[in-house]
Structure formats: C-alpha cells, structure tokens
C-alpha cells in the first residue's frame, strides 16, 4: 500500500505551564491562534506533514502538561521522541530559568541523540518582556542548541522552528543510515552545512572495502 509519508518524526513540546506550548502547536498544525485555550492536562498530539527536500515528513507533535508535578507522566513520552522543543515565555523570567531544568530532564529521560531546540515564545509582547533575546541566545549557545524567538499569536518563526528541527532530525537520520549502510545510500543526499559531516573520502573508502 502506498504510504502517505516517507518519514515519521515524533516531536515533543515541553516547558513551564502557560508559556504557550499548545498555542505554538495549534499555530503550526492549524495555522490559527486561539486565546481561549484551556490548560493541557495529560497529553495530546497533533499531526502535520511537511515536505522536506522532496520527502514527505509526517510530524507527530506531542503536547504535554507543563506543571512540574506532571513530569513523571510526560517523561514517558521522551523516549521515542526524535526532537524536543523547549519553550519558555519571554515575559516570564522564571520560565526561562527553568529551561535548564527541562534540559536536565531531557538528558535523564530522552535518548542521547535527540534533537533539541529552544523557543522563546510570546515575543510579540515586547512591553512585558523580561528576558532579552541575547540571554536566550546565550543559553542556547551554552547548551549548543538552536534558538529562536517565536510568537504563536503573530505566527512568527513557528514554521521556521519546526522545519529547522525536522531538517536536523532528517539529516541526522540520514547520516546514521550512511554510517550503517553506506552502500545503500542513494546519491543526491543533501548535507547540511551546519552538520558534522563525514568526509566523502571515508565513505568512498568504506565503499571500496566491499
């Protein structure tokens, strides 16, 4: 049967309660913004299929409850996720400080090579901003994670964020495929400039062994 997608990536949205995870998800999956969201209890997910370099990538994005108490439940979903979005609220200092804790949580519960990204949401509320963009960037550099400020309300950078994350995952996956099965690798694979690339020479040398 014909598959409707080539890849299925499981993504996860985490962050303090009230930072806007559900709104981001809604913006990405439905391209809408609703100020009347009720707080997420338990877990939910949305799907969107995007096109990446000609491949259909189905993104299954899980949305969790943000309160710390629910972490034991949400950590059950860390396993198996390929990408995790850490979200904080630029108008809430505390949520930014907690990003470190969330990262630690990921390190403890998710797979080691999960792709991460930090989102500073609600960047449209400049008048209430408490966390500067520089600080966010600094944090991201510190953890070597990508960072972008988003606004689910104004639809700013949400698509970018997800597409970037998906691309990173895809690239990583293809790299792994290369590593495990070089002769099966098809040509035309697009290597990302910011990835660590195996030198083509090694691929060729491996090839020649066979």
């Amino acid at each position, binding site marked *: 049967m014909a598959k409707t997608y080539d890849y299925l990536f499981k993504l996860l949205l985490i962050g303090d309660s009230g930072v806007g995870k559900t709104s981001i998800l809604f913006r990405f999956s439905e391209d809408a913004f609703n100020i009347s969201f009720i*707080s997420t*209890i*338990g*877990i939910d997910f949305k799907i969107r299929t995007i096109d990446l370099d000609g491949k259909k990538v189905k993104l299954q994005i899980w949305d969790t409850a943000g309160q710390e108490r629910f972490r034991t439940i949400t950590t059950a979903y860390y396993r198996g996720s390929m990408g995790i979005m850490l979200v904080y609220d630029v108008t809430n200092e505390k949520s930014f400080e907690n990003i470190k804790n969330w990262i630690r949580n990921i390190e403890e519960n998710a797979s080691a090579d999960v792709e991460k990204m930090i989102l500073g949401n609600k960047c449209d509320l400049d008048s209430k901003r*408490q966390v500067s963009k520089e600080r966010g960037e600094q944090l991201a550099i510190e953890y070597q994670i990508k960072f972008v400020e988003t606004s689910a309300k104004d639809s700013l950078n949400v698509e970018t964020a997800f597409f970037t994350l998906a691309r990173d995952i895809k690239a990583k996956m293809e790299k792994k495929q290369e590593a495990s099965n070089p002769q099966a690798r098809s040509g035309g694979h697009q290597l990302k400039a910011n990835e660590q690339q195996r030198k083509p020479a090694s691929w060729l040398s491996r090839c020649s062994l066979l």
Partner: protein
Amino acid sequence: MAISTSADKDVEEPMPGYLSLHQTAAGLIIKWTPNQLMNGYTESEGVDKSAGPLCTVYRRACFGPLCVDCVYWAMSLQVLVWEVVYVHVHRSPGGDALILVGQDGVQRPPVHFPKVHHKSSWPVVASVQWQQLPTDILKPGFSGGNCCGQDAVIRHCVGQDGVRPSIHFPKGGHLLSFLSNLETGLLPHGQLDPPLWSQRGTGKVFGRGKGRRRPMPSLCESGETEETDCDEVAGDYVFRIVNNAIADREAMRHSLLERAVSSPPRTPRRTLASTSTTSSDSSTMSVDCPPSAGVNGHPPMNPAAHLPVEQSASIELVCSTMRRQIISRAFYGWLAYCRHLSTVRTHLSGLVQPNIVPDDDTEGGLTEERWRAMSDEHGAVCDKDEVYRLVYYGGVQHDIRREVWPYLLGYYEFGSTAAARAEQDAACRRQYETTMSEWLCVEAIVKQRDREQTAASIARLNEAQGKLKPVENVSCEYETTMSEWLCVEAIVKQRDREQTAASIARLNEAQGKLKPVENVSCEYETTMSEWLCVEPIVKQRDREQTAASIARLNEAQGKLKPVENVSCEYETTMSEWLCVEAIVKQRDREQTAASIARLNEAQGKLKPVENVSCEVFEDDLSVISDNPPVVSPEPSETEKRPENKPVLSRAPSIEDVENIELDTEEKEKDDSIVNGETEKGDSRESVDIDSLKDLNEENEIHIKSPIQNPDLRRESIAEIKRLAEGIVQKGDGRGPLCSVDSGNINFNGNDLRSSLDESLPPPTPHQHQQHSVIVTNPSVDLAASGSPASGSGTANVSPARSPLGVVREESHSAGASFDTLEPSGENKPDNRSNCVSPASSNGGVYSNELVESFALNLHRIEKDVQRCDRNYPFFTDENLDKLRNIMCTYVWDNLEMGYMQGMCDLAAPLLVMMQEEAAAHALFHRLMLRAKDNFPSGQAMDAHFADMRSLIQILDCELYELMHAHGDYTHFYFCYRWFLLDFKRELLYKDVFAAWELIWAARQVSSEHMVLFMALALLETYRDVILANAMDFTDIIKFFNEMAERHDATSVLALARDLVLQVQTLIENK
C-alpha cells in the same frame, strides 16, 4: 547415502516444507513434506541418474527423472508421535527448533518453527480426523487427511551418524501452536509432561484456543511479563510424551501399530535416521508403554492374524477416542471458565459491592417532588439509601442539584435539620473568610515582590540594552512606596499622639486635672504631623516627576515605562488590599463586638476613654467601601484628620499599611498578651467595643470617606492578619472570632450594630491606652512584652486595631525602619528590633518559605484560572475571581500539596452549581479528599490503570487482545485525563453534572470505582471503531481527544451501570 550427496549442497540452509499433524487411527502423526513435493515442483534434471537405476528411497521403483523427487520424498518426515518419548524444544530469537526423540534415543529431525506473526491454524487436531488404516498408510503424499500446517523447514544437520534432518519453525507463535495442538491431539491417551497448557498467576487470557493460550511457565520463564509474546524467549525445554492409555486400548493400538510398523514407508526413515527404523518397531512398542504404569513392551504381534479384528477394533477405538476428546475438551473448557471466574473474584470483586441494588421505580431519578417528599418538617432527610438509589439510576433534577449535592459529597449529614445546616453553612463561611484573609495578606507581599522582580527584570533588560539607569526605576518604585508609608507613618504618629493626648485629657478631666501641656504638645505635634505628611508627598511627587521624565525619555527612546507599571501595580495593589480591608473591617467589627460582649459579661463597666477610641475607630469603619479605588478624600469629620487629606492623594500600598501596622504593633506589643483572652485583652477590647457602641450613632457621620485614613485601614488589615495569625497559631483562640457571623460582609457600620449588644466594662480604668487586644501567637517573639500598661502613651494603638490585636510578624518589603515610629510610651526597642525590617522577612507565621511557597502556587493558580473554561460564559472575571479565591483558599489550607493543574477544572463545576464561594469551596474540599490521590502526588492513578487492565481482560477479551498487540496501550494513558478530572473535560457541562452525581452516588450504591466503569463504558461504546481500525496508542489518544464533549453521556452512563451490574452478577453467580 544417496541423500547425502544431494543434500550437501545446502546443508546449512533450512529447506522449507509443510508440517502437519494427522490424527489417524494409528495415533498422532507428524508429517513433514518439502515444499517441492507439494506443489509439484520438479527440480532440474541435474541429478545424476547414475546414482542407481532404481531409487531405493522408497519402495516403489522410481525412474531417473523421479529421482529428485525421491530425494525429496526421502527427506520427508513422518513420525508417529507414540514413538516419540521426548520432545526437545530449542528456542532462539531466530526461530524455534523441535527435536523428537524416540525411546531408542533417536533424534528425529529437529523441527524448526518459523517466527512469522500470523495465526496458524491447526484444525487437524480439533477436527479429529481419522481414517481407515490403509496398508500403505504412510504413503508419501497426502492421505486425504485434513491437515494444514505451517511452513516448517527441514534442515539437515550433519551429525556423527550421518545426515540428520532437523525441522525448524519460522519465527512466531508456531512452535507454541504446534505444541498445543500436539498436546491436544495426544488426549485423551497421552499428554505432554510437563503439560504445555498450564494456568499460572493472573491475567491469563482465557477461552481462546487459537494458540493464544499461555504455555507452561518454563516456556516463558525468562522474566517476561504476561503481555509479551512467549515466543520471543530463547531457551531449551523438554517435554515428555506420556501415554496413559489403558491396557486394552493399548493392545489395540499395538496391533494397529504393528501393522504400521510393518509398512514399508518406514524404510525411508531408516535411511534418514541414523538408527535403523527397524529398531523403531520395537521402539514403537516400547513407546506405548507409559512410564508410570501399564503394559509395557508388548512383543510385536503378528500383524497379519489380527487384520479383521483390527478393523472393527480401530473404529471402536477411534470412536472412544473421539468421545474422550470431547469430554476432555468440555472439561478443560469448564476448567478455564472456573479459573476465569476465580480471577474475576480475586481481582475485581474489590471493585464492586456485592449486593445489587434494584432500579425499580427510579425513572427520572431524584426529582424535586421526591426530594421534597423525603424531607420532614425540620428539613431533615433521613432516607439516604433511597436518595442514593434514585440518584444512581436517574440523576438529580437540575433545580434541586444545589441542595442535593452537599449531601452527595458528604458535606451535609443526612438527618440534619435545616437549622443545623444553616449553622453549618454559616460556620463554613466564616471559616472560609478567615482563611481567605490569611492568604490575602501573603498575596499582598507576593504581589509586591512580583512587582519588584518585574521591575528588576525590566531594569536588567534595559541595562543590557544600554538604556537609562534602570536603578532609577527601581528606586523610583521603592521611593514611591517608601514615601507612601512614610506618609502614613506620619499620620499614624499623629493620631497616636492625638489619642494619647485625648485620653490623657479625659482622664485628667475625670480626675479633675488638666494637662495643658499635652494639649500643647498635641497641637505641636499636630502641626508637625501635618507637614510631615506633606513632606513625603512632595518627595513623592518629585520622584514621580523624575520617573515621568525618565519614562518620557525612555519613550522617546522606545523603552519601557516602569512608572506606568508602578502605578498600575499600585492600583492593583490598592484594589487588593481594599478588598482585604473590607474583610478586615468586618472582622474588626465582629471581633470588637465579641470582645465587648465578653467584657461586658465580665465586668459591666464602661470606660470613658472609649469615646476617644470611638472616634478614632470610626475612622477605620469609615473606610471600607465596596468600590475599592476610591481615592477621593473627603472632609474628615474630626479635626484630627485634616492632614490626612493630602495623604489621600496617594493611597498607600498595602505594604505601607503593613509597615505601619508593624510600627503600631510594636507599641502594641507592649500590651500584647500571649494567646489573648486575658482580661487585659478584654479590657482593651472593651474600650474599643464601647467606642464601637458609640459609633452606632456616629456611624453615619463617619462612615463615608472611602479612604480617609489609610493608616486605619492598614491597621485593620494588620489586625486581621494578626487575628488570622492568632487563629492559626492557637486553634482554640477562635472564640471571639468565630462567634461573629462573618457572613455579613457588607462593610458598613450597620452590621456592627447588630453585634454590639452588650456593654463592656473596662477592667482597668487607667488603660487609657488603647491597647489592642493582641492575641498573639506563641511564636511571636514580639509578643513577649505583654505589659498592658505601657504607661503614658504608647500612642501607638489606634483603637481601631484593638479588637484584632494579633501581632503580625509579617515582613514587608519596602518598609522603613519602624524606629521612626517610636512609641511615646513604653518603648520596647527589643521588640522593635524583632519587628521585621521591611526588606527582610522574619520568622513567624509568614516566613519566607511560606511566602515563597504561596507565591509559587499563586502564580500557578493565576495561570490556570485564566484559562479555565474560557469558552463558558459563566466565567466572567468576577466568577473567575471567585474561582481563584476558592483555589487560593484550598491551597492555603493544603500548602504542602500545593496547586496542581486540573484542580481548577474540578472546582469550576462546583462553583457553577453552588454559585457561592464558601459553599463551593467546602464541596471542593470534600471532593478533593478522594480526588487528590489521582494527582501526581498520589498513587491512585496506577491503581486505576491496573484495575482497568483487569476489567477489560474479563469483560472484553477481544479489545484486550488488541491492546496487547500494541503494548504501549496498556499504559492506559488515554484514560489519564478521564480519571484526573472525573471526565470533566470529556463531557459538556450538563453531562458533567450527571456524571459526577453518578460517581458520588455509586460509592454508596454499587461501586467506589465508578470512574473505571465509566471509562470502560466509553471504550465499549466505540469498540467497533477501535477494533476496526486496529487502533494503537496514538490513534486512541487522538480519537478520544477529538471525541471530547461529543459523547452521548446518557448512554455511556447507562452502559457504565450495566457493566457494574455485569461484574456484580459475575461475582454473585458461583
């Protein structure tokens, strides 16, 4: 051997073939045939025909071209199970292998079972096929028996004694199904030892004999859970084939087997197996001998003589075999059912109550008329069983829900009279307000801190962006605040002085003395205080201007405007404490009244000084209007207050109030009495109460200006806090507080009148000092100084605060040192030093940890309350505030648990129904007694999931198997939200009401775990969809999340009741 040469080409590779079990008169036969033979495939003719003119593989001669086939035929395998003594099972992740060992030690080819996941069917055994035994019974090819098999391969292994075919099964449940079919086929004469099919432990899947039955423990013993497929285990097992046949049948069989023995097709085996099959003749015989007992080693009989007898004997044997098999199958079925039931009883009986309550005459549930009919003349409803029954089966009519719900939740007792209930309500309301006042104080601090933090963050932000010195903004605020309370401070001091002077004056009058000096000093101080008041205003204005210019500058540069924030926050704060103020006032009055009452009882005297306090006190009373941010100063009634007016232009923040209070408290400490209720305290109270009494007339006069005396208001807030602390600290010290019905929070002096019914004699006449009754907490270090008579003039206590003289040790931020507010009278520096410096926080009730903890919860609550049920029009801002209050109050009482997301959802319907905060809070509290375990802090959720698993297993095996197939599923996380919120998010509000009623009533009627059955009902309602789409975990979550609020609640609830009944019946019927 001929075979070996052709076989070595792929000795290591399994050859696929067809494995079948045949039930014949001779017994169970395992046959394996290469695929090549089955489909008529003929290999190429590359075989060397020169191997021999005649293929001696089989009896019949075959010609050259058929040699290949003969080879394959030679490879085919036919084993009479009775020849087999042991069955060796080798399991590995790659597949399973089976080796049959005859009694002579011969290893029949290991049969390898593949691991393909598809259901195999072995109908052979089930449909007892038998056939007349032909002479060439084991002729190659199918003898018409209905056999199906699986793809099993024969692998030829080279052993010491030559080629030895082995049979490998592909991956999957095949080995298991083969073995179980084998076992069944062996019945009734034989069995596997140890039996393959054994019951162990719980959670077995019952009743489905399609190879899904649980194999013996050893097959699954490498620590796997019940859910995993046992085929995934690696290991070696040995089964022994045991024959329990009785002698005569054995004899028959022997005769039959003899015939079989002599049949030529055995010959191939001779060549295949290393050992000669001729030996199998005897081994055949010996196999039939049961190890336990029985006939053993019949000598082979001469087959020929028995032919005619055997014919009829065989039929008879087969018939009896069939009979026995049917009986045994029936028996096993019944046995399985019994085991099933025992599981039910063990695991599920705890979920339901044993006695079934009938549902006759419950149409419409608890209607209003039925309800009214049930309450007697005192308003007591006694027949609670009937109430529960009606609610369980039919719900509650909407109009009376408000009345009935408190009963269902256990808040009202059945049998209580209407009067008792009213009393209970009143007490509840008082309690609620008390608690509310407690946390409101903390909230004020929290808000202030938030503001500071915001300012700091903004400042940092600005700094980082190189803007104007942010510290100015911060200091702006700080100084704003400071100036505010400085103002108040001045006023307070002034008033203190005034009061002192007045008291003294009166006292002197009474004693015939005059102290003009005091008057003078009064005046002086009056004047001084006047300008002192103005001074801060001026400073403040300066600051404001500075801030404004900064702001403008910032604006010009596009920066933030902290000043606005300040003023915003300021007004926010103001409104906050204004609310508190209202409560405080009320409490003041109540407290005062109570104290007065007490004192009056005790002594019956009046204190002249009360007049003074009256006036002053009235200032307090004048304040609380219901429109908080009324800043317009009104002409003060007394000459004492002209200076207040300018102050009023800037209503102080609550911190100022607090600060002031602390200051004044200090003075009060002098008078403080630990754990109050001493006479002194009473006396103080009496002073005020009397004044309050006088107030009655003056109420109208004074109770006007909204914010006349901010200091007074603050005092009252402080008092409330102190009061609250007192309550908190000394549980028994609630007398005066609780006696007052705080239900009348109307914040007007009229209420006071109602509570002032007694006159109160002051105990000590010299106590012109308006010492507040300080019901201090033992923990209050400041309370140490309990000296009542702080002589001259601790012009500290404004009479207003006396009734609630709870020393509050709260720390304020941004307060000044209170040293400036030195008591004119006794000065307890030590106390004052204990008094918190504004920026720090001390011990006592409102410790820093407490404030922090409450702050955290406050933020969470606010985030969640805003988002709660936004789509419902009921939740206006006002109602959201109520919700917030309920939450804060509950969290304040349960600070160690704190607020968790979901609690709002649980409280919201209660608020919608009861409308009133205190009632909703009381019901919420009762609800949480059970519900709090569902939250992450409790253990109930896991128990729910486990129970769900058992329930589904018993009540719907098919669904359970589907869930099994998708292992994740069994986490039941799609039920998480259901259980946490009692289905509140899954149903529309009106359905939520019905669902909750069912849950509550069911606890008394049929099951304390009604939520489980409702969850099951939801699953069952959509089971067709689920099964048809073979939903896995993500599908199910998505499905139910999207079905939220679209369920047919009535049918779901009815189904839930049905399921409970089912389980009850199951348990009841032995």
